[in-house]
């Protein structure tokens, strides 16, 4: 029997473990392409519906509707995509893999960080596809590639932060269906009370008040400021503040939930 030599325990092992868990999650993702297709098909349908079916009825002063629409669609795609984080984690919870991970001498945070990192990669892919679709239906950035890339950067920052919200949810519910059932209404409300598809000005006053103070709205507004042109700094800062705040609160909460799970 040859002896097994152990790798030393260092901070870098947390990073190595995160890379291993991320790789595992990405392999899983690519081998169940239904999930990836679902994540892309729904936003594509929204683009087509709002661009061609409803778009004619929506008037947004001073801008082509397609240029108004696409920033909203980016926000919507990643917001719905975040539900996948909760579904993935609760699947691992139910299958017993999380129990196994907890009995291994691995870095604990790697389980959560590996999940959100893999989902970050998934979001990048979805955003890339949606950008292509946007160009195909006539979306253009008036500020050129710089403005567009900055806007997509905001989208990705938001996507990463929101996936931590769904880490907390995924660890609390024990099966994927419940995770899905819990996530969809939350995201639906956030997206459709925001300016993602229609201007807030078209909503009743009380709803405008809600819509103006939530993260999806902040993101869509900041993206438009960056791609349509005009002063953007304030909107960008508000969106980044939302993402940063959500990330801090929910990463801490998730780590706590995971550490105390079943204890």
């Amino acid at each position, binding site marked *: 029997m040859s002896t*097994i030599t152990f*790798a030393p325990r260092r901070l870098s092992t947390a990073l190595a*473990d995160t890379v291993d868990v991320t790789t595992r999650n990405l392999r899983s993702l690519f081998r*169940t392409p239904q999930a990836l297709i679902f994540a892309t098909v729904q936003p594509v349908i929204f683009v087509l519906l709002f661009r061609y079916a409803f778009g004619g009825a929506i008037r947004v002063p001073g801008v082509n509707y397609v240029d108004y629409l696409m920033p909203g669609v980016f926000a919507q795609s990643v917001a719905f995509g975040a539900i996948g984080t909760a579904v993935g984690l609760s699947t691992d919870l139910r299958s*017993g893999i999380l*129990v*196994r991970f907890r*009995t291994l*001498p691995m870095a604990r945070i790697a389980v959560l960080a590996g999940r959100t990192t893999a989902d970050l990669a998934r979001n990048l892919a979805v955003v890339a596809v949606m950008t292509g679709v946007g160009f195909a239906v006539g979306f253009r950035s008036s500020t050129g590639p710089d403005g567009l890339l900055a806007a997509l950067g905001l989208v990705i920052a938001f996507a990463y932060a929101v996936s931590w919200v769904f880490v907390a949810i995924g660890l609390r519910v024990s099966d994927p269906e419940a995770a899905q059932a819990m996530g969809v209404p939350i995201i639906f409300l956030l997206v459709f009370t925001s300016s993602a598809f229609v201007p807030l000005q078209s909503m009743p006053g009380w709803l405008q008040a809600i819509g103006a103070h939530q993260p999806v709205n902040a993101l869509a507004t900041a993206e438009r400021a960056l791609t349509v042109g005009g002063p953007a700094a304030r909107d960008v800062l508000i969106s980044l503040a939302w993402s940063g705040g959500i990330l801090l609160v929910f990463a801490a909460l998730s780590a706590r939930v995971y550490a105390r799970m079943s204890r």
Partner: protein
Amino acid sequence: MSTPAAIEVEGLRKSFGHVAALDGVSLQVPAGTVLGLLGPNGSGKTTTVSILSTFLRPDAGRAAVCGLDVVADAAAVRGVIGFAGQFAAVDPNLTGRENLELIGRLSRVNRKQVRGRAAELLADFGLTAAAGRLVRTYSGGMRRRLDVAAALLHRPPVLFLDEPTTGLDLESRLALWESIHGLVTDGTTVLLTTQYLEEADALADQIVMIASGRVVDTGTSAELKHRFGTVVFTLGFGSQAEAVRAKHVLAGAGYPADRAGTEIAIRSASGSGDLPKVLRTLNAKAPDPATIAVHEPTLDDVFLALTGHAATEGGKAA
């Protein structure tokens, strides 16, 4: 026995809400031996193993693995244990090899050795041919073997197996038993939980029987069998006269029997191996029985004797 205990448990308590899953469990497992934790559903087997493998924290009591406290030194304990739970905790979307290599790296096995070690285990568990297939195409038995293999990557001196053969067909069960035997020969200490008397019998040096979170009896398989293991042979004959005749012959040969109608029942403390002797005794001097039934003691019988209530009586999942 002066061998140091690989696993020491003292007065372990754990409640879930108002339900006491463990109500003061104590046990010791000498290094290099197998302890079978035997009990019905909801008796606290899984809770015990979960605490020992650092997944659960006890409310009270103390547990140590290789001298390391499972609460205070939880991280160090994870380095010396292998754990395979009740359900095969492997990723269906990875291949068998990928699963083992992942768990190996996460178990801190040196990266250069992971590949070789995974291949070794795949061979040991008869999975080499399926190594490159996605686990979602595996049978239940293959998943289970992969799951146990995954617990062994870092050659843990102590192995916890929670109902390792539940739901397996006979062939897979025997193959797994053989693998466990091999590990123990190489010096691994094993604590396994089971609902099957037979399994504890085949694998365990010592058996601890628990019910409702308490240890109800401890002993070797032979000791427990001697205490509870009365096998009953029921022989049916063509007529009452034949049965009476058979009863008489057996009584003369030292096998007292009870008769009810055309049937006689013989109780044997030495197990079903007595049956051929009984039949040989009858052979020349009495008619052949028309029917033969052997009633082995079941876990239910044993628990009935020990606790006064049936093993299958409800309670929460352990």
